[in-house]
């Protein structure tokens, strides 16, 4: 049984090794000419307008958390949809319950006023 883990082991070794080797190589043979532009954080090509370590309004976090919850919901729905035929009625009911719980959560969030920006 343990043999089946050998590919996982190989994968692990290769991934760690790859990361290590790349970093080591670039450190060893890469040429370094630091300029100011090179040292600023990379933000998808935009020029930063201030330090990234500043305080955000807490509302961002709330929205982000809500996003994650529903994101996970969708992530859960993909495999479910793929296997929908096999799961049959039972799968449908299970998913309905799951969605219902999330609906209740949404209602709660809505009632608490977390969806309003101000």
């Amino acid at each position, binding site marked *: *049984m*343990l043999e089946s*883990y050998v590919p996982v082991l190989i994968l692990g070794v290769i991934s760690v090794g790859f990361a290590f080797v790349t970093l080591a190589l670039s450190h060893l043979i890469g040429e370094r000419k630091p300029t100011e532009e090179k040292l600023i954080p990379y933000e998808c090509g935009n020029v930063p307008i201030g330090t990234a370590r500043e305080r955000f309004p807490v509302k961002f976090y709330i929205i982000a958390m809500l996003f994650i919850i529903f994101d996970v919901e969708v992530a859960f729905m993909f495999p479910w949809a793929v296997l929908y035929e096999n799961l049959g009625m*039972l799968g449908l009911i299970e998913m309905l319950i799951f969605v219902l719980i999330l609906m*209740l959560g949404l*209602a*709660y969030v*809505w*009632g*608490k006023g977390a969806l309003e920006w101000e």
Partner: protein
Amino acid sequence: MANFDFLSISPDLVLIAFAVLFLLMGSFSRTPGVHNYNMLSISAFSLAILFNLLLFGSKRFGFYDMMLYDELAGIFRFIFYGIGIIVSLMSDPYIEGKIKHKGEYYALIILSIVGMSFIATSYDLIMLVLGVEAMSLSVYILAGMFKHDEASAEASIKYFLLGAFSTAIMLLGIAFVYGTVGTTNYSLIVQNYNKYLHGGIQTGIFLFGVAAILAGVLFKIAAVPFHMWTPDVYEGAPTSVTAFMISGVKAASFFMLIRVFLIALKVAVFNFVDIMVFISIITMTLGNIAALTQRNIKRMLAYSSIAHAGYMLIGFVALNKTGLAAIVFYLIAYALMNLGAFAVLVLLEEKGKDLEHVSGCGFLYPFLGLMMTIFMFSMVGLPPTGGFMGKFYVFKGALEAGYLWLVIIAVLNSAVSAYFYLRVLVYMFFEKPIDAGGALRTSSATVTTALVLTSVGILFLGIFPQFFFEITTKYMTYLP
């Protein structure tokens, strides 16, 4: 196989319905402050107890054999719901004005207890993890319920991070177990172990998995050296939440230990007895010794809970019927005395949290003084309290298993513990009262009810111990 036995989880369904109701009430009610959430939550638990009473005595598998409801699980459900009632009773005057929406508080308590109940009925490691997470997540939030209190927030974050870490270790262990025996179902683990594993590297990996699961469980139990979070979290969390954690979470964790290691992993449990003896000794010794110098009563009780965990582990080390049944008995007594002591603290906290602040309160408030005396006596283990009989049965189990020296160490430990428990009473009765704080609102009817319930329970366990002990012995069917 698709045995959807909703009846077996009916108490939990009731509770979940109430929890959802509480949350929605908080969101949509125009006057969220006026609802008697504590009474509602008590009725929820009472309903749950009623359903459980109807179920009690049957043995039912359910949900693809991921759940097994048996008598011992039923008993633990009673314990959890009872704890829920008492916590609901003592919380209200304490959180009044400190938490904006009390429904959330009670909903989280209820959900956490549902998690415990799932732990109690789990028959699959996945189910177990679900239960543990449902319980823990709610408690993480509860610990940080006082948003404007730094200590509370710190407790919450610490508990969350460390808890997540320990759960990760536990999941890792489960993964290893799954990897070696190819299943997470309790009975299949045993079957497959006997079928496929015969020594060698695979058994080694299996044992590694078991050790990691054990580490996760011991973290929840707060055994040394997994105890580091306990003092900070118990001290920082709101007092009523600490009472809940110290009684409910501890009881659930111990049942997790018993259930997982005596049903699923009983094939491996004997490999860990020696190390558990060691852990039990350092747990109680360190807990008691560290408690000696604490000035903050909550922190002292946190260390004391570590020490009590050590005593209870003795019953697990003994691995016989008496010892294991004694753990259950001890847990009941332990939950009652801690809930009671914290209920007193809930009232006295207006004065302050340190020993000096309760000076003279014993005579100022004779009822509270009397109650605290009962609870502290029970914690030391003096007759005629439940604490005494709990220790007695645990030690008896250990003696039957031949651990005389372990019992001697434990008894020495409880002698040491008398110092810091009785010191609370010394401050309450023999010190001059300090002026700070003014008069207390001691006449909270719900807290008084909680105090009466717990103290009567403690004395009942102490005077008529046979009653419960016979029940627990009868249903302690998990044996290695």
